[in-house]
């Protein structure tokens, strides 16, 4: 983004950089510094929230790749998270497998499931595809439930904190750094894919499949690739979830969770990685925000016993407001703000990707 005036690029390499200007570099360092000291400043509660956001962001980025870029709608995201979590849980319970076994195993299982459930995408489009991915969700939930029932883990599988290089991962701070690394790694990986051939092919498929194919894009392969990459990232997120929360159970992976992830992608802003991050933060933090608002706002006494239903209704309401008034999502707001500050006092600049 050529932001400051008088700055010109002289080499194509510069177009490929993430960080271009000195201001951007300073901002990045500032951000990194803040991220590094955050866990030492935040209360335990805030730290836990940060951890939840980081964890969700991995899944959100994965879904953004699939839905926001490759255009393949999926409602089976919770199923994939469950698959990752169950892989970890089962391997842990049955073989006492350590984390460096369960994590790659989850990724592999995710990739296989992604491949399988990507297959319908070769024939199906849009909402038909979305509903067919629901099947994935139900099947994983069914299998997980059967495992729990058969092995007698009726209230979920409890797993011990993972041990990394002889270091037990059980403090929130430690988790913060692990999850931060996971989130940053996923982000970098996704951004790299998007600025190269594969990412462009996905976006082309999103726009018009037949044309992409006539231009030399192997459409089936790229679709499946999108499913495989996204699913395997998601399953890894599921595995991390299992360790982070210390338990696995089917009920943790409801359809509502899938919907929350879709909400992250849309509320954040389709077709933008930043959007995935913002969306994840928004959807995770929102209920807490409502609760906080409820605590300080006067509410009818009739409802005070039903704070929770109010919370639920408010969530719906805010989501609707969002979709109505900011269809571009949180990135839309972000860009507008950016434009405003960059161009002030001039009018806004033509928006672009």
């Amino acid at each position, binding site marked *: 983004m050529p932001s400051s005036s008088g700055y010109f690029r002289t080499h*194509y*390499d510069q*177009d*490929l950089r993430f960080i271009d200007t000195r201001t951007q570099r300073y901002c990045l360092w500032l951000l990194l510094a803040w991220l590094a000291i955050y866990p030492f400043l935040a209360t335990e509660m805030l730290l836990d929230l940060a951890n939840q956001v980081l964890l969700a962001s991995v899944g959100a980025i994965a879904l953004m790749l699939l839905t926001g870029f490759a255009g393949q709608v999926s409602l089976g995201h919770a199923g994939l998270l469950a698959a990752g979590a169950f892989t970890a849980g089962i391997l842990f319970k049955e073989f006492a497998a350590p984390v460096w076994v369960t994590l790659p195993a989850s990724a592999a299982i995710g990739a296989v499931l992604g491949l399988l459930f990507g297959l319908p995408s070769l024939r199906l489009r849009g909402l038909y595809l979305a509903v067919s991915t629901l099947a994935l969700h139900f099947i994983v939930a069914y299998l997980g439930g059967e495992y729990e029932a058969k092995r007698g883990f009726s209230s979920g599988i409890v797993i011990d904190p993972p041990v990394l290089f002889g270091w037990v991962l059980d403090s929130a701070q430690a988790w913060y750094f692990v999850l931060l690394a996971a989130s940053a790694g996923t982000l970098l*990986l996704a951004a*790299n*894919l998007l*600025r*190269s*051939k*594969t*990412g*462009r*092919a996905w*976006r*082309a498929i*999103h*726009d*018009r499949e*037949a*044309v*992409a*194919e*006539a*231009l*030399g*894009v*192997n*459409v089936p392969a790229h679709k499946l*690739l999108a499913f495989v*990459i996204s699913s395997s990232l998601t399953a890894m997120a599921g595995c991390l979830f299992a360790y982070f929360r210390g338990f696995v159970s089917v009920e943790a992976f409801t359809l509502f969770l899938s919907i929350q992830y879709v909400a992250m992608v849309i509320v954040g802003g389709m*077709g933008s990685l930043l959007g995935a991050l913002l969306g994840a933060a928004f959807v995770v933090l929102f209920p807490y925000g409502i609760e906080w608002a409820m605590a300080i706002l006067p509410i009818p006494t009739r409802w005070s016993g039903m704070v929770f239903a109010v919370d639920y209704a408010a969530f719906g309401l805010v989501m609707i407001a969002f979709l109505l008034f900011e269809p571009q999502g949180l990135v839309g707001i972000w860009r507008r703000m950016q434009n405003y500050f960059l161009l002030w006092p001039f009018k806004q600049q*033509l928006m*672009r*990707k």
Partner: protein
Amino acid sequence: MAEQDLAPIALTLDHLFLEFGGLSVLQNLSLTLRAGELLALIGPNGAGKTSVLNCICGIYRPSRGSIRFAEQQLVGRLPHHIAQLGIARTFQHGEMFQGMTVLENLLVGRHARIRTGVFGEALFSRAVRAQEILHRRRVEEILDFVELSAFRHRPMASLSFAQQKLAGFARALALEPKVLLLDEPSAGLNRDAREDLARFILRIKHETGIPMIWVEHDMQMVADLSDRLYVLNHGEYLTDGAPKEVLSDPKVIAAYLGGAKHEAA
């Protein structure tokens, strides 16, 4: 045109039939494209011109017949494979990727020429970066050629119809094709832009010698530029030959040109 006849054959369509559930679109169509030739494919609306191009690039699968290119049978191959062999095309309705910038559209057009693997891309290795820069340079040259450089970072949706058609032409060139299929590239362009287009086509022909099949309804352009005309009517061969002869053929006039208002050459 004698030297043309001697030129080697680039692409052959042999006894091609195309059907859609009982609806016969192409019947017994045979056509040869010679190296360096600019072949104009004309015919009334719904004659099957676009369908011929679709058959060549694998979007439609002919029910019978063969299409041979560089000693390979194209019938039965997947479109992306055919594109990789070096057959590029433009589309009648533009069909640009509206959500991407002009530059990205061209880079997608170049997809088949970029050799990078997913793992390298995920890490954006040195090799991937080098490839990206290399191909970016090529694409910029093409953008320059069609005089669209100023639009490189504009989202495709913000270009007017004619600008998009030109970008589509550039996107086809980005593949560095061995055969170029043009589907009504001039539709929606005004006289000025058509002259530019004519200039581009001629330069490509002279500088690189890529053979082209060119579907067109502008008879002036066809008459001025093409080496040979091939006329389709109702999915069947009507006639072919030098522009002058074909355009004064009564059969063609009756089926396609109508009246005598056109001024050939």
